[in-house]
C-alpha cells in the first residue's frame, strides 16, 4: 500500500466491448489497477491488459455500458489488484470482486495480497496424501478427495451440481486432526436464486462461520468473472499458508469463467482457438488450478473442487478437456442417473481420483477401503454389462450370477449412490454400505479383497 495516488487520464481513444483504450499514457504497468470514472462520477474498476506506443488497453471489470469517449476518465492507481485479507473474512459474503455483499463494513485487513498469487515453487510442493471427508458416500468411498488435490466436477446444464457443491461445502471436514478447516466458495456467473441458495444453505447449517463466499451472479458483468476465482484463491492461500488452515475451494461454474475469457479475447481481436476460446485457455486455467496444493513445512493446504458444466454434455469440449489435463482426476455427473432421479448422479465408471490411493487405507480411512472400493467398481461395471445384455435377451435369458450382479447394480444405486442432500455419512458408514453391496455377491466372485477382510466384514444373508 502506498500514499502515492495515480495519474488520471482523460483521453479515451476507443471503447470496444469490455475494453477501454486510453491514449497518451506514460508509465502504466501490465496488470495495473485502473479506476474508470464516468461522466456522472460513477467509478468502475479495471486492469491494464496491454501497454505500448503511448496507449493502454484497460479491461473494465464492471463492463463498459454507459461509458462514452468524452467525459470518461481513467486513473492508473499504481498497484495491481489486491485483496484485503485477515481471519475476519471467515463468515463473510463478498461479491465477485471481493467487496462486501452482506451489508457489513470492509474487513479489517491484516495484509493486502496481489490477487494473481505467486506460483508455488514445485520443489516446495508436498505430495497430497491426507483424506478429506465430504460426507457424500460416492466421493468418500470411490473417488476420494485428498487435501491439496484439485478434483473437478464435470456436470451438464440443469443437473444437480449446485446441490452437490453446497452439500460438500456444508459437510466437508478433515478427520483425525484438530487442524482448522475452512471452505472458500466462489460462485461464478450463477443465477440469483442459486447464489441465495448457497448463502442460505451455509448460513442455516451453521457452516457459514468457517466459510467465505464470493458471489458473482449471472447479471453481474461477465468480465468480473475473470477476477472472482482469483480473489477466492487469494483468500484461500492466506487462510492455508499464513493461518495454517485446511481450505477447500469450490469454484462453480468454471464454464462461465471460460466464456468471460472468450469475450475478452474476441474484443482484443485475438486469433481464436477451439470453439472461439483463446489459444491460451489451457495456460490461463492452469494459473487457477495450480494454486491448489500443500507446501513443505507449512501446516495448511488448498484443495480445489472446480465445477464446470459441459456444453451439450460434451466431455471433449475444450473446457473439460483442458481442465482434465491439469487436474488430478474428475467426478463426472451422468445424465442417465440424473433422469432416474438419483442424487448425486455421479457416474463412477467415468470418474476417477488420481490421488485416492495415497489418501486412503490404514491410518487415514480403513485398511480395507481400497480393496472394497475396487470390488464394488468392478461389480458395478459388470452390472452395467448385464443390464445391457438384459436389454437384448431379457431377464429370463440371464444366468443366476448375472442376476446377482444386476441386483448389485440396483443396490449400489439405491443405497450407496443415492443420498439425501442433508445426509452426512461418515467414512465408516460409507464403507459399511460398500460391504453390504459386496455381500450381495457370492464369496467366490469376490476376487479383489483379501480373505482376512472378507472374514471380518462380509455380511452373510
Amino acid at each position: 500500500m502506498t500514499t502515492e495516488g495515480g495519474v488520471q487520464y482523460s483521453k479515451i481513444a476507443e471503447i470496444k466491448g469490455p475494453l477501454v483504450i486510453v491514449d497518451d499514457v506514460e508509465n502504466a504497468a501490465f496488470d495495473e489497477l485502473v479506476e474508470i470514472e464516468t461522466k456522472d462520477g460513477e467509478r468502475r474498476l479495471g486492469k491494464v491488459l496491454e501497454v505500448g506506443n503511448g496507449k493502454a488497453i484497460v479491461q473494465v471489470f464492471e463492463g463498459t455500458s454507459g461509458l462514452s469517449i468524452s467525459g470518461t476518465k481513467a486513473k492508473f492507481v499504481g498497484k495491481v489488484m489486491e485483496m484485503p485479507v485477515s481471519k475476519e473474512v471467515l463468515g463473510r459474503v463478498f461479491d465477485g470482486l471481493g467487496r462486501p455483499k452482506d451489508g457489513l463494513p470492509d474487513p479489517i485487513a491484516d495484509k493486502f495480497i496481489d490477487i494473481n498469487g505467486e506460483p508455488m515453487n514445485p520443489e516446495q510442493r508436498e505430495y497430497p496424501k491426507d483424506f478429506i471427508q465430504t460426507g457424500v458416500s460416492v466421493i468418500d468411498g470411490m473417488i476420494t478427495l485428498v487435501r491439496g488435490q484439485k478434483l473437478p466436477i464435470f456436470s451438464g446444464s440443469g443437473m444437480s451440481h449446485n446441490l452437490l457443491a453446497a452439500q460438500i461445502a456444508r459437510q466437508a471436514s478433515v478427520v483425525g486432526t484438530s487442524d482448522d478447516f475452512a471452505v472458500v466458495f466462489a460462485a461464478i456467473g450463477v443465477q440469483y436464486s442459486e447464489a441465495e441458495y448457497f448463502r442460505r444453505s451455509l448460513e442455516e447449517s451453521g457452516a457459514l462461520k468457517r466459510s467465505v463466499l464470493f458471489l458473482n451472479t449471472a447479471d453481474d458483468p461477465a468480465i468480473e468473472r475473470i477476477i472472482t476465482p482469483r480473489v477466492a484463491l487469494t483468500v484461500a492461500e492466506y487462510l492455508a499458508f499464513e493461518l495454517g488452515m485446511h481450505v477447500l475451494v469450490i469454484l462453480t461454474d468454471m464454464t462461465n469463467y471460460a466464456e468471460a475469457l472468450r469475450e475478452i479475447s474476441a474484443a482484443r481481436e485475438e486469433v481464436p482457438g477451439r470453439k472461439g476460446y483463446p489459444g491460451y485457455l489451457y495456460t490461463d486455467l492452469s494459473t487457477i488450478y495450480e494454486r491448489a496444493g500443500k507446501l513443505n513445512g507449512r501446516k495448511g493446504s488448498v484443495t480445489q473442487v472446480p465445477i464446470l458444466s459441459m456444453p451439450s454434455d460434451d466431455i471433449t469440449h475444450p473446457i473439460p478437456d483442458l481442465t482434465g489435463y491439469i487436474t488430478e482426476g474428475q467426478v463426472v455427473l451422468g445424465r442417465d442417473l440424473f433422469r432416474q432421479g438419483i442424487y448425486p448422479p455421479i457416474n463412477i465408471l467415468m470418474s476417477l481420483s488420481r490421488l485416492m490411493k495415497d489418501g486412503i487405507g490404514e491410518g487415514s480411512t480403513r485398511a480395507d477401503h481400497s480393496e472394497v472400493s475396487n470390488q464394488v467398481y468392478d461389480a458395478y461395471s459388470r452390472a452395467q454389462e448385464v443390464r445391457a445384455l438384459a436389454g437384448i435377451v431379457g431377464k429370463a435369458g440371464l444366468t443366476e450370477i448375472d442376476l446377482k450382479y444386476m441386483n448389485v447394480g440396483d443396490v449400489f444405486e439405491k443405497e450407496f449412490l443415492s443420498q439425501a442432500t442433508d445426509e452426512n455419512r461418515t467414512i465408516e458408514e460409507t464403507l459399511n454400505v460398500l460391504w453390504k453391496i459386496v455381500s450381495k455377491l457370492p464369496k467366490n466372485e469376490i476376487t479383489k479383497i483379501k480373505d482376512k477382510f472378507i472374514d471380518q466384514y462380509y455380511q452373510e444373508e
Partner: protein
Amino acid sequence: MASNSALESTIDKILTNTEKNVISNIRLALVDSQQKIDSAIPKLESEYDKIISDGKKEANKIEKQITGSSDIEARNKQLMTLEESVSKVFSEALDQITNTARNADYSNLIKTLLNESTQILGTTQITVLTNSKDKDIVRSILPQFPGAELSSDQINCIGGVIVKSKDGAMTFDNTLDARIERLKPLIRKEIASKFGVGN
C-alpha cells in the same frame, strides 16, 4: 356293546393323538416364538442403536446450526460496533486536520505535494486547484514551479491540491482527502488495533 367299546377306544385314540398333536404344535409354536424373539432382539437392538445414532446426529446438526448462527450474529454486531467507533475516530481526525493552522509546516507540506505531483505528471506546465483556505499558500509557492498557474476554480477538500496538465489530459489528485482515502484500510487497521482487534 362290543361296537360301543370299539368306538370308545377309537375316540380315545383320536383324543390322545389330537392331544399329542396339539401339545407338539404348542411346543413347536413355543420354540418358533422363542426363535423369533431371539432373532428380533438383535434387530431391535440395532434399530435402537440406529435411532439413537440418528438422534445424536440430528442433535449435533441442530447444535451446529444454533452455535454457528449465534457466533455469526455476535461477530457481526462486534464488527458494526467497531466500525462505528472507527468512523468516529476518523471524523474527529478529519476535523482536526481541517482546522490545522496554515503555518510554515503546512506550507512545506503543500510544497511537497506540488513537488510530488509535478514529478508524477512529468511537467511543471500545470494548473493547480485548491480550496479557499490553502489558496494563498499555494499562490506563494507556485513561483517555484515555472509554468504553473493557480486555477480560479476552487475545490471542496480539507487540504492539498489537484494538479492538471495544461492540455487537460492528465490529472493528479494530491488532496489530503485523496491521500487519506488511499490509506484508509491501513488507518482503519491501526485504529482497530487500538481497540484490541486484529492484533
